[in-house]
């Protein structure tokens, strides 16, 4: 087993120009992974790609159905396949946060489109490539970024919490259906981090009490590395004909 599990791994990250996503791009780039990242704003995508030579910046919005296939096409084209997908882009729902009774339906819809439908659509579009990676023993994995709000009922976090709960359950079912074929799905809660999303949610938070996104990113990468190194990932059965 190589000391660096991400050397030459082909990794795509949504929401890759700020917060946790940007920290993941940085660290994976530093570790020799082939990285493609997606974000909405063209200028910011170009800037992050410039700062990390060799990474592939893709402009797109995961909440938009029509953006998904062009995004998948570029991810697969730029990287020549895919081993790891990190669905990190997230929408908070109403800002400032609101009680469900005060939440506009459109805000809930947007949270669901970004946090549930987007990851579902993108995963589905990339599933053929992930299964091919698994058959080649490259350790195919999808990491969906979760939250403690997916499990606990925090007042005013309704749109976000409900969407993250749906994503978490989707992740578990994907994993139950596809781990046999060598594609693993992980749901990880990175904790409260000092990111633009958290600043939107809790503008007056004491930033010194929040985790640095770099630390959370390292923890996520450890979880991905550990899961990919598990024995079933190298299991040749997924590519093979039956044993006599």
């Amino acid at each position, binding site marked *: 087993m190589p000391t660096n599990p991400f050397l030459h791994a082909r990794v795509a990250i949504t929401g890759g120009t700020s917060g946790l996503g940007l920290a993941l791009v940085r660290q994976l780039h530093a570790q020799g992974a082939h990285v493609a990242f997606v974000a909405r704003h063209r200028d910011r995508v170009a800037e992050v790609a410039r700062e990390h030579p060799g990474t592939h*910046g893709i402009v797109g919005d995961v909440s938009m159905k029509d953006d998904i296939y062009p995004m998948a096409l570029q991810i697969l084209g730029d990287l020549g396949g895919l081993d790891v997908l990190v669905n990190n882009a997230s929408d908070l729902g109403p800002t400032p946060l609101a009680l469900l009774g005060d939440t506009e339906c459109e805000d809930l819809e947007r949270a669901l489109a970004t946090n549930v439908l987007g990851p579902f659509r993108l995963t589905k*579009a990339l599933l053929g*490539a992930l299964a*091919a990676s698994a058959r080649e023993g490259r350790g195919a994995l999808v990491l969906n970024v979760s939250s403690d709000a997916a499990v606990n009922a925090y007042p005013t976090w309704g749109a976000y919490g409900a969407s993250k709960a749906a994503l978490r359950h989707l992740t578990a079912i994907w994993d139950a259906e596809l781990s046999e074929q060598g594609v693993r799905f992980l749901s990880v809660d990175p904790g409260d981090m000092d990111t633009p999303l958290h600043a939107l949610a809790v503008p007056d938070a004491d930033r010194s009490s929040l985790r640095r996104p770099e630390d959370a990113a390292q923890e996520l990468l450890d979880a991905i590395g550990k899961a990919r190194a598990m024995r079933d990932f190298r299991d*040749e059965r997924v*590519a093979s*004909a039956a044993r006599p």
Partner: protein
Amino acid sequence: MTPAKLMIVDPLQGLRHIARSQLVDVLRAGDLVIANDAATLPASLHGIHTRTGESIEVRLAGRASLSQDLADFSAVVFGAGDFHARTEDRPLPPLLTPGDTLALGPLAARVTAVLGHPRLISLHFDGSSDEIWSGIASHGSPVQYAHTPTPLALWDVWTRIASLPVAFEPPSASFALDWQMIAAMRARNIGFATITHAAGISSTGDVELDGRLPFDEPYDISSSTARAIARTKSAGGRIVAIGTTVVRALEHAAMRDGVVQAGGGVATQRIGPGTRLKIVDAILTGVHERGTSHYELLRAFADDLTLSAADEEMATHGYRHHEFGDSVLVIPAVGV
């Protein structure tokens, strides 16, 4: 639409019909199913021939290899109009000469050669590989034909197993597969593997050009697939190809010494009645017309008498043309 049909052709035991979704029931433990996992490029690019200002449609049609460097393609070029007109009715493009520039939405391309026909060129895209992918993703649409009047989206032309985007038209036989079927194969100890083959365009509307189809098609075979084939062969299992592109790639890769080598190549050979197949035992394919290169390939699997009987049987049972999903599986009960 009614569920897709599948006719089983066993050269020794005759013909029978099942639902295409029942494919796994015809297979045995120890067989290895191999499909083409190429995803389909949005290979139709509309734009302007700069020198004359005339509207053109460029259909990307070939590449030398599957590498990520995608600056150079061969392409078929039409004059004004789009897929709503039958390809045979499409006007010629303006006279194309090497050095001409083509403005294709965000993409800029240059004609590098005219390949012996006023519609067939090689072209070079300006810009970095990422810029070209981005331009194709935002501006291209799937190649399509007049018999499908509504515009196709990428999700219509990507199969469930679509992986590397290198095909110019869908490897349509792979539409027979879904994740349920792949899980069922695994449960029954039927192997599943993929190759990637840049399936080319099926028609140009021009008799002379169509006679040159298929253009050279690059493919790639992973080492895990090559190993699975070797294991299956040595254990006496059958190799079941999903689609003609799989047959062409596997037989090409085994041309040198009868063993499928992992790696890339360009399937240049034609397969027909005289071909002795070294690797593939059975093929699942769409319903193809006599005279096409797809039909010729089937003649390597079964004699003309069997195929004529199959044609008649399919006509009697109202089998629809290949893009509607009705299929035929030529499979000998005994390994060849």
